[in-house]
């Protein structure tokens, strides 16, 4: 159940990030075509729509998991695992330069979220 939340959230996040990268700098688009132009550019992206779809799947997986397990288990586990899987997926699929600094940060946030759940 937690794996479903994590996988769908990661796919959703990566698709949305890929969509925003392909659309380009929203500040430039807003300067050229106004706010409505920027909104249309985002909504017209198929990757963005698929990303939102996967985020919705992740949300419903979360609701399903919460009907079977405590929030105090599900929330920190899914949040921290999603952080790490996002870093891995960003390196592989978005070709981001995930340097040692960002890996250490991912581990720190993971540990921090788990500790804050206590």
């Amino acid at each position, binding site marked *: 159940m937690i794996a479903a939340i994590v996988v769908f959230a990661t796919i959703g996040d990566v698709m949305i990030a890929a969509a*925003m990268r392909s659309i*380009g700098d929203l500040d430039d688009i807003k300067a050229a075509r106004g706010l409505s132009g920027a909104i249309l550019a985002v909504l017209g992206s198929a990757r963005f729509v698929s990303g939102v779809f996967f985020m919705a799947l992740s949300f419903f997986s979360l609701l399903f998991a919460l009907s079977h397990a405590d929030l105090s288990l599900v929330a920190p586990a899914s949040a921290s695992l999603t952080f790490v899987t996002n870093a891995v997926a960003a390196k592989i699929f978005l070709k*981001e330069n995930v340097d040692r600094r960002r890996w250490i*940060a991912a581990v*720190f*946030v993971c540990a*921090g*979220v788990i500790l*804050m759940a206590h």
Partner: protein
Amino acid sequence: MTFRRYLVLGVVAVTAPLGDTLLSAGMEKVGPVSINHLSLLIYAVRTPQILMGITLLIAFFASYLASLSWADLTYVLPATSIGNVIVALLARFWRHEQISPARWLGILLITAAVGFVAQGPSYTVTEKECATSELTPAGIAPGARRS
């Protein structure tokens, strides 16, 4: 990274937990919603806290998308985590809740992680972006970063 962009990341960090908190406060006022009376949810949307919560979450999503257009996902994500820290600090200093040593350690780790990432470069320039750029980024190799 300009001051304005750091401000956008600040909006990302703050609006999500505040929006969630307001939704929670609003639903507490509405009370338990039975599956046989789901129309109560429509009435719930009209409460001020829920409306403010929705507004803040829309602001979160808009600023999150904007930040992804000029920064890497792995640069923006720690900003979303600092929201946990803000909520915990608000709970301690505004609502006078107790925070355990484990939670303080968690706050420290997340803050350190965000500081770590914020000091580094924010965007990975791809080969395609190099080739289509009007400027000729001499000496910038594919996968190189710009701040």
